[in-house]
């Protein structure tokens, strides 16, 4: 490892012979990444074995195959990073592998309770697809700035993807799925990344105009309609579609993403005030008018109302029971009863299983893993010098952060519940694939961020 690293650095030094001698020699830290991946795979296999031992008293028959499969995928991904993004941040890939591995363990564990509905095999296929996409992105995308050119393609694709499910029947009150040949896809998931690319590109191009042009009304500098118009239109359109589809979580995510990126691009605190005001208005309006949403808010305010009414605990109450049952150290993998939650235990409520069986300790560890992933995204954003890259990194990290907050806050009763997938953990193909794409882009931008120091003196 050290010899390979030294060799590669020597090559760089020769290539940069024409320019001033490198002031900083950055370590590549690929060995750390590999070691962390090994740990992540071993932890996942350990969890898989623990579930089997707890539920059936024997090691699960597929333990070796499962570990080998996950290990090979992770190693290939690592090789792709080593070859094509050698300066990349060593943390995002192991975090992705660990979260995806834990997700597979939890889904496998819940499958044992519902013999008629097995989701782990499909999730494994989707994870494979996701890591394949990761490898493709890392290998094919040499420079993230290329994406800037496809800003408008991205936004059109995002809108099409968002609108697609309207043509398909609603599932459980939300019209966000497309069912093709037995597979159900949530196109809104892919739209997240595309929209982040568009926002980053548009804001990078127009940030000066947004920040300084236009009239000043009250104490807010309002940009000209020509600059502000398109992006507000896109944003309104996407949120409108989502409200029509009753995908509350994603509309909240888009809203937050838009406000954060606008703030970072323009540096105007006024945007946050406007954003919060709009959010409050929107929330009140939707909460009043939409019975589906109104019910969610009632559930959040009074999670045990249905028990008092003699109707038994609702999903949120069951979820809270599951978290409580876990306590500090958890019941142990396979030994909880989060299956009592019923519907959506493997998707929206998978965190309840983590909370019950791994306890506050395990749950906090999961939150910190997500936090670390987000932090690495922001770090890449800070290190980059091109505005598009910075905004893209911030946008991608914010997507992860908001998504985790919205779903985890929902199932633990912090905010009203909105259907959403916990990144990597929850059952759901589109989600896993999208999150691997996000990690791939973070790897790419972090590689660029650190590569630019190499051979230059000042950041």
């Amino acid at each position: 490892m050290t010899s390979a690293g030294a060799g590669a650095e020597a090559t760089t030094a020769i290539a940069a012979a024409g320019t001033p001698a490198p002031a900083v020699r950055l370590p590549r830290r690929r060995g750390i990444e590999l070691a962390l991946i090994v740990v992540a795979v071993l932890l996942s296999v350990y969890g898989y074995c623990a579930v089997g031992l707890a539920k059936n008293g024997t090691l699960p028959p597929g333990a070796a195959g499962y570990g080998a499969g996950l290990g090979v995928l992770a190693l290939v991904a690592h090789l792709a990073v080593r070859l094509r993004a050698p300066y990349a941040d060593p943390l995002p890939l192991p975090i992705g592998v660990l979260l995806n591995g834990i997700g597979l363990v939890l889904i496998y564990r819940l499958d044992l309770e519902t013999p008629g509905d097995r989701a782990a095999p499909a999730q494994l296929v989707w994870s494979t697809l996701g890591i394949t996409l990761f490898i493709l992105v890392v290998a094919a995308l040499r420079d993230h700035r290329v994406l800037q050119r496809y800003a408008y393609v991205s936004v059109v694709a995002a809108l099409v993807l968002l609108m697609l499910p309207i043509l398909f029947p609603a599932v459980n009150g939300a019209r966000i799925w497309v069912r093709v040949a037995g597979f159900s896809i949530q196109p809104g998931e892919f739209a997240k990344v595309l929209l982040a690319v568009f926002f980053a590109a548009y804001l990078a191009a127009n940030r000066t105009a947004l920040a300084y042009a236009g009239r000043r009304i009250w104490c807010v500098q309002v940009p000209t309609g020509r600059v502000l118009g398109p992006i507000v239109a896109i944003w309104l359109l996407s949120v409108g579609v989502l409200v029509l589809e009753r995908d509350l979580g994603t509309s909240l995510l888009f809203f937050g993403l838009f406000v954060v990126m606008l703030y970072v691009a323009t540096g105007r605190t006024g945007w946050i005030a406007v954003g919060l005001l709009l959010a409050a208005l929107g929330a009140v309006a939707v909460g009043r008018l939409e019975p589906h949403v109104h019910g969610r808010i009632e559930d959040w305010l009074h999670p045990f109302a249905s028990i008092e009414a003699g109707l038994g605990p609702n999903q949120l109450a069951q979820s809270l029971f599951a978290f409580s049952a876990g306590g500090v150290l958890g019941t142990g993998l396979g030994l909880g009863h989060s299956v009592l939650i019923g519907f959506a235990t493997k998707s929206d409520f998978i965190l309840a299983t983590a909370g019950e069986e791994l306890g506050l300790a395990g749950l906090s560890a999961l939150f910190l893993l997500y936090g670390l992933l987000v932090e690495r995204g922001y770090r890449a954003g800070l290190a980059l010098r091109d505005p598009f890259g910075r905004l893209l990194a911030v946008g991608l990290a914010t997507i992860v952060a908001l998504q985790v907050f919205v779903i985890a806050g929902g199932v633990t009763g912090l905010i009203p519940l909105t259907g959403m997938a916990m990144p990597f953990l929850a059952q759901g193909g589109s989600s896993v694939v999208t999150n691997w794409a996000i990690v791939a882009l973070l790897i790419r931008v972090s590689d660029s961020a650190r590569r630019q120091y190499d051979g230059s003196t000042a950041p």
Partner: protein
Amino acid sequence: MTRHIRHAAVFCALLLLALLVNALRVQVVESAAHDGNPANRRASIARYGQPRGDILVGGAPVTGSRDTHEQLRYERTYREGPLYAPVTGFASQEYGTTFLEHTEDDLLSGVDPMLAPLPLWNDVTRGRPPGGNVVTTLDRRAQQAAYAGLDGRKGAVAAVEPATGRVLALVSSPSYDPSLLSGNDPGVEASWERLNADPDKPMLNRAVRQTYPPGSTFKVVTAAAALDAGVVTDLDRPTDSPVPYRLPGTTTRLTNSGDGCADASVREAFEWSCNTVFAKLGVEVGLARMSRTAQAFGFNDTDVRIPFPVATSTFDTSLDRAQLALSSIGQYNTRATPLQMAMVAAAVANGGQVREPYLVERTTRHGGATVGTAGSRSARQAMYPATAVRLRELMEDVVREGTGKRAAIRGARVGAKTGTAQHGIGNSGTPYAWCVSWAQGKRDIEPSVAVAVVVEDGSANRGEITGGGMAAPIARAVMAAVLGS
């Protein structure tokens, strides 16, 4: 831009912090409340996740567990359920637990800290050891004899060992099978509703949870009070009692069902159960001494547990003289459980000492190692030992030549007192047939069993309902079973 990226990062960090704090709130601060919410099925799942320990009679379990592979996995089963129902009670997924299943629940379900190999072990491992067993004091043959004797008629039997207070038999009839209430299937609810709607109240534990007017069997208490107080010194001296006896301060005349009570001696009056003599005796003893003696026998004790609570037997302590006269022959407000009357007989048999009754001999771990034993129970002196000797004589006379002839056992010393208790408005109800008795085997140095039987059979011909006719044979069968075993 850098500054604003940092701001956004701080915002994300705050979101993370909010999640962590909220997780702490849900999983630690509010955890106990959620765990205890009755709608949370986890406690039941854990509780029924392993077989329950067993209740043992004569070394063999009368309970069992059946694996249903359902969410509430193990169901309780009962061997000879109706026979032991007044002792075991039921353990139902739907309706909770009663009697021994209830009072010994922690041990049977495995959460009793005594079962853990080390202190706090269960809390650390979050597991629970296998349920322990409860060894009862019951005598299998006595129990069977009592149940067979009642033969489905409404009534109850309680038998105790006088020297220790061990409960040898506890039977209530008609009974029910507690296994009907185990499990999750819809039949359980139907059974529950049917049993509750049944006018015969099969789930009522008549031996310990129902009080009856004790009628003439209470004359044992009155006689003890009179002898202790010195109101009666010679059992054979005429008592100067008129027939009918006018209740003091009223015009009500009290009569007897038989003849020969006028001016009878206490021995004759006891033998032939003369109401007039004992009503007058009670008044002569006085309220204070009558109350004291009744309470020494266990009346008005609100805290009798065997270990499940026993209904309080009552002797009214604020009476005028007419009421005292009636109370002294087991009428008016005097009420007793069959177990209480068995204790009265046991006190006579045990030299005047009342031992607190108990039903659990010891508790063991799953493997059989003892966790707890009954230990010595407190005793109360209900009467002087000399009084007890004379009362024994009186009770033996009842069996030899009085109303209790059908309680006699060849080759054993048997004492008894029968009773036919009036009840209902204007005594309109079918009278209860009572018999309290004790027996001493030929080779025993002291009486080994005391029994109380009550039969409340509404279907029988009123004239046939007498303690001697209906209750004494059952008492005899129970005593014979204990002596023979």
